[in-house]
């Protein structure tokens, strides 16, 4: 620490004590080390230039308050410590003053431009001497008087004094004091320093000790107040690291879309303070160690410390111990270092941000400040680091008010490659805007959960941290291009080439363009270098020239670099898309291809897709599809031109594929006549053409119109044909398209008629390609909705295969597999198959999952199996009913409803069902309370469950006690036929206990029930008639029924072919009639 001089006790204490260091931002530490003054003065030292003597203090609010404190201290020094005030400085403080001789009052000898104090030192020198604008002062007494004279110029004087004397303490106490510090800097503490002074002969002077103590006290106070300011800044804490790691973990795993392959702590043990580092490393401020596996490089071993995150020496292979040595720069947080280390990470994480940043761009631009963190660049000159400080502090405060949207936006996958995933993720990931809201609330509750017990300041910190991160991700690459002094050599070469692009004629331009293509344009450094030197503007500008060669060269580059999400955004911002759309009209086929391909790359986010549409791009792209029609007879060999034409059409399809991810574009493609063209291309022999075509169709098949057209254009046939293709990606997209379309019954039949079920079934045998497996199982699921298809599947022994897929598959596959089994189970024969090949156990095991879509399907399948008593025994043995029952507590209504439906056959078929149901503690109360739900499906399912529960007298008694009657009565005024039917059944069951019949009447359930008889649904009629029959056992109910015209309606029902209905209606009428007779009899007797 060569730069330490002067009075540094405090700073040394701070360095010695890791505890204090932990709370101090390293920036302060840097300042401490760099500045020769005391700590407090250091905080004042927001100098505009580094170096000694020449520096000037910046006028920042922080500086000003510190100066004020110092002035106050010095001013009161004379009166508070008269003795010490007389102490003569070892060396006088000298600075240029603005004070005029005339401003000095009594006690000074004024002569012309010079002023001398009457007070003299022992040597006879005046303690204050002013000559011209130069002033020398050598005691605190004089200093305090001077400030007194200076009046409103106090601050200025103090500032001038500090600027001129960057080392005031040394001047006051003398070089000797400093010498000690330098010698003993390793283990010096303030106490020892003072001890030394006391012992030392030279410092026998008590005064001096006192002064130094006083100064120290001042220093302390100042430091405290500065720390208060600084502590508002973000620091890494165990909680924030933990939070980051947890969030990253959620987005890690296999697959293209995740940010990392894995991220793990090296140690599972967590200390009470949240650290995972061993105690002796915690002394260094280290929190924990991480092992990170990004997609694109080897394992990275990271150390998270309070100062930031850095790469450590990794785990020693022989000792299995961590090499704690720092091997990289310190980054300010986990995300920044991972961004730097892994291009894939930064790509995926920003990809996931797109949707958010795309729309918020404009606001963002205004807000984003160039946050340069001094922590990150400790060797940068102080000025640039420090001068940014106070504005950034302020901005942080502002930012704290913003909600953190980073992770919420990241869970909205903008770039959904496959809509099969989309529909599967609906329960776990929000795909629509209204769902985004719900996830925002869940994430925020999740966040506050993890913070329970932590101070509110930390909450603020975390929020500000993540929001600053999200801003930073926008900003970050700029920083690493400009913030670093050692830019890669490519940067300069690219800059030069861009200069030639700007200043060259077409010959030079073409040469520069060709040369630029020799760089690795898939590398982020090069992509961003092109952007940062203004290359994108030039490249886009070249597209507007007349020169075909320049356009081709430029597009070739744009096509490559537009794989980068940031570049895409910039291209759109610079208005590149409309120009490319215009180029689609060019007679040059090369140009058409390149423009379409570039559009395909750029149109990966919403705003870009909209721009393409608004500039008529969709129509032009659809027209490109016409190129592949061979105008000559098919015998004609593939000439050069024809190959080019196919390529044009392929590029057009590629661009349409990208564009088709927006709803409005799907419509535009259809209107532009895209479907027949795509259908025609689907028959093309060119495999690389088929993928984008099927991709587009599959994307568009989410629209009703398309599904109709797909049927009309006989596209299913081609899709089925291509299922047998060699290309796995093509198979995947075909299966996915079938999955989308097979919601429609006719389409399902078409798939079967074209022989599509067999290839689907056989594709199940290859389980390595999970994406394809997910698509294929999805297609099977949807196809299995038709009975004929299920029969076929049974022939192909697909059910057995599906059961085999119930374990060790990713969720997106499981959802489809279970869905397919659920459909198959609708037939008794298949239930037996599933039981025989051991499918029940894995199904029941899946009941404990969390994936909503999966749970809906699993409950459905288990419920279907439970219809068979033998399977039911197995389910009961595996405790499946309890699991189903606990799913009634699931927050998602679909899961609740599905679980309740599944419970019905379980209760119906279980042996000793009543006892089983009673064994679930609180289960009956839970069911009854679900009647308060808002969701019709949940209500209907719960009514059905209650019907089954109520078959047991004892249980019926219990639910009656839980108030089932008023709750059911309250539901009576519904128009939903499904709910009506199950409600009526439940009511008729519940009438069997005590005075429930009367209670229903009291709760006004009877009149609405009568109205059910006007419904068109015969199931409703039957259930209602039965309920009315039960209710009619009570006289008052009979009166109500009669008043509401039930008799006439029931009379019609008596003529129904449905015997149950007949009987119930007749019974009911009989009861009413009997009452009437009894009344009459009573009247006349």
């Amino acid at each position, binding site marked *: 620490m060569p730069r330490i001089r002067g009075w540094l006790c405090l700073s040394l204490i701070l360095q010695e004590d890791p505890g204090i260091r932990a709370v101090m931002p390293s920036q302060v530490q840097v300042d401490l080390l760099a500045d020769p003054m005391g700590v407090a003065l250091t905080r004042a030292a927001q100098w505009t230039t580094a170096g000694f003597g020449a520096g000037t203090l910046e006028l920042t609010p922080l500086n000003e308050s510190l100066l004020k404190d110092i002035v106050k201290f010095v001013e009161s020094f004379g009166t508070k410590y008269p003795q010490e005030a007389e102490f003569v400085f070892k060396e006088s403080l000298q600075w240029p003053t603005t004070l005029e001789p005339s401003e000095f009052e009594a006690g000074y000898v004024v002569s012309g431009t010079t002023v001398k104090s009457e007070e003299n030192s022992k040597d006879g020198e005046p303690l204050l001497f002013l000559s011209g604008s130069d002033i020398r002062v050598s005691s605190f007494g004089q200093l305090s008087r001077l400030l007194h004279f200076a009046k409103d110029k106090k601050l200025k004087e103090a500032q001038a004094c500090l600027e001129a004397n960057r080392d005031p303490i040394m001047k006051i106490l003398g070089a000797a004091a400093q010498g000690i510090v330098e010698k003993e800097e390793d283990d010096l503490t303030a106490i020892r320093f003072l001890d030394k002074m006391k012992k030392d002969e030279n410092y026998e002077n008590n005064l001096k000790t006192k002064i130094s103590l006083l100064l120290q006290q001042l220093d302390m106070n100042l430091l405290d107040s500065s720390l208060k300011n600084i502590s508002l800044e973000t620091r890494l804490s165990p909680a924030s690291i933990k939070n980051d790691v947890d969030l990253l973990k959620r987005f890690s795993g296999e697959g293209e879309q995740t940010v990392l392959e894995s991220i793990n702590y090296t140690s599972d043990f967590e200390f009470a303070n949240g650290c995972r580092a061993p105690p002796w490393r915690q002394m260094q401020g280290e929190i924990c160690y991480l092992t990170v596996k990004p997609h694109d490089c080897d394992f990275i071993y990271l150390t998270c410390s309070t100062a930031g995150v850095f790469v450590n020496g990794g785990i020693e292979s022989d000792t299995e111990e961590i090499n704690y040595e720092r091997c990289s720069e310190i980054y300010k947080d986990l995300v920044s270092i991972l961004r730097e280390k892994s291009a894939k990470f930064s790509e995926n994480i920003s990809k996931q941000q797109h949707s958010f940043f795309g729309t918020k761009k404009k606001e963002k631009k205004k807000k984003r400040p160039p946050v340069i963190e001094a922590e990150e660049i400790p060797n940068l000159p102080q000025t640039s680091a420090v001068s940014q400080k106070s504005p950034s502090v302020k901005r942080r405060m502002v930012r704290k008010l913003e909600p953190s949207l980073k992770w919420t936006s990241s869970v909205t996958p903008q770039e959904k490659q496959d809509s099969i995933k989309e529909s599967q993720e609906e329960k776990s990931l929000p795909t629509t805007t209204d769902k985004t809201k719900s996830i925002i609330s869940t994430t925020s509750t999740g966040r506050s959960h993890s913070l329970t017990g932590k101070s509110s300041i930390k909450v603020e910190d975390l929020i500000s941290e993540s929001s600053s991160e999200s801003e930073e991700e926008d900003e970050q690459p700029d920083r690493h291009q400009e913030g670093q002094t050692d830019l890669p050599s490519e940067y300069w070469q690219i800059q030069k080439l861009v200069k*030639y692009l700007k200043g060259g004629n077409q*010959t030079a331009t*073409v*040469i520069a363009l060709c040369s630029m293509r020799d760089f690795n344009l898939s590398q982020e450094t090069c992509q961003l270098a092109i952007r940062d030197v203004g290359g994108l503007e030039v490249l886009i500008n070249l597209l507007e020239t007349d020169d075909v*060669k320049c356009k081709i060269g430029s597009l070739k580059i744009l096509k490559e670099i537009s794989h980068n999400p940031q570049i895409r955004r910039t291209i759109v911002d610079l208005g590149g898309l409309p120009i490319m759309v215009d180029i689609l009209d060019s007679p040059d086929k090369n140009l058409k291809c390149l423009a379409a391909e570039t559009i395909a790359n750029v149109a990966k986010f919403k705003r870009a897709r909209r721009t393409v549409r608004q500039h008529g791009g969709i129509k032009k792209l659809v027209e490109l599809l016409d190129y592949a029609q061979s105008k000559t007879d098919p015998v004609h060999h593939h000439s050069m031109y024809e190959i080019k034409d196919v390529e044009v059409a392929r590029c057009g399809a590629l661009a349409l594929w990208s564009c088709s991810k927006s709803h409005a574009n799907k419509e535009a493609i259809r209107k532009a006549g895209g479907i027949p063209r795509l259908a025609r291309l689907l028959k093309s022999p060119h495999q690389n053409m088929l993928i984008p075509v099927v991709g587009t169709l599959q994307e568009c098949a989410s629209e009703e119109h398309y599904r109709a057209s797909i049927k009309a254009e006989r596209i299913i046939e081609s899709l089925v044909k291509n299922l047998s293709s060699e290309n796995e990606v093509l198979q995947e997209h075909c299966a996915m398209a079938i999955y989308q379309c097979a919601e429609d019954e006719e389409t399902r039949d078409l798939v079967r008629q074209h022989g599509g079920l067999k290839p689907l079934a056989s594709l199940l045998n290859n389980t390595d390609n999970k994406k394809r497996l997910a698509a294929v199982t999805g297609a099977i699921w949807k196809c299995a909705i038709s009975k004929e298809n299920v029969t076929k599947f049974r022939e192909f022994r697909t059910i057995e295969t599906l059961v085999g897929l119930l374990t060790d598959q990713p969720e997106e596959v499981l959802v489809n597999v279970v869905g397919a089994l659920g459909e198959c189970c609708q037939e008794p024969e298949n239930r037996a198959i599933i039981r025989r090949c051991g499918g029940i156990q894995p199904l029941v095991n899946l009941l404990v999952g969390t994936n909503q879509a999966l749970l809906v399907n699993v409950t459905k399948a288990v419920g279907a199996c439970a219809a068979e008593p033998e399977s039911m025994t197995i389910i009961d043995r595996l405790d499946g009913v309890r699991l189903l029952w606990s799913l009634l507590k699931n927050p998602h209504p679909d899961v609740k409803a599905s679980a309740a439906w599944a419970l019905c056959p379980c209760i119906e078929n279980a042996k000793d069902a009543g006892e089983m149901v009673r064994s679930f503690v609180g289960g009956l109360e839970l069911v009854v309370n679900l009647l308060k739900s808002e969701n019709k499906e949940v209500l209907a399912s719960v009514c059905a469950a209650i019907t089954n529960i109520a078959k047991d007298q004892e249980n019926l008694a219990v639910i009656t006690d839980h108030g089932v009657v008023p709750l059911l009565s309250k539901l009576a005024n519904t128009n939903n036929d499904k709910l009506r039917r199950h409600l009526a059944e439940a009511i008729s069951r519940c009438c069997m206990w005590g005075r429930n019949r009367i209670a229903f009447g009291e709760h006004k359930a009877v009149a609405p029930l009568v109205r059910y008889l006007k419904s068109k649904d015969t199931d409703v009629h039957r259930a209602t008639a039965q309920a009315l029959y039960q209710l009619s056992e009570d006289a008052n109910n009979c009166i109500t029924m009669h008043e509401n015209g039930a008799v006439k309606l029931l009379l019609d029902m008596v003529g129904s072919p449905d015997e149950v209905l007949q009987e119930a209606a007749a019974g009911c009428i009989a009861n009413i009639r009997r009452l009437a007779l009894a009344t009459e009899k009573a009247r006349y007797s």
Partner: protein
Amino acid sequence: MFPANRRRMQKLAESLSKTSKHFNKHEIECLIKHFHTLLEETIEKQGTTGIDRNAFRNILHTIFGMTDDMIMDRVFRAFDRDNDGFVNVTEWVAGLCVFLRGSLEEKMKYCFDVYDLNADGFISREEMFHMLKNSLLKQPSEEDPDEGIKDLVDITLKKMDHDHDGKLSFADYEMSVREEALLLEAFGPCLPESKRHLEFEAQVFKDPHDL
């Protein structure tokens, strides 16, 4: 046209169409006719049988939109195979054959000849410099205005000089062009722009029935 001339022309067209790869007889007749029209338009003194350098440059400029004098000179040299300072009708048809319809190989050969200023079989660093010297906007701030050009030559050599001998052989050039078609006219435009090309053909090869 006099019948004698007409007969002569048909005979010429007959013979030329035997050697011409890319033109049919009708097209050659058109080209011959067009050549005579040009000759009449541009030559003051009658009797010469060819287009001289100035007139040829004029044609390249007005019809094909070329601007670089040096390249136009070189194109003239490429057309004027017998080096007599005039492009006669045979040379005109043969030249246009490559110029308009040449295959990639023919065009590469032609362009290389245009760029090989001293016809030694190599495009040297100096020749490149010469051809590129006007290709950059002069920046007044730069100390050495030729610095950029030199750098551009270096870049070009780095890109195209596959055998690293500091100059481009035809093999180097051919390899580069096959890699990147844009480098065909690496040192200046010496082929017609596609738009002008189409216009020219449309104008000259009018359907015989329209005449």
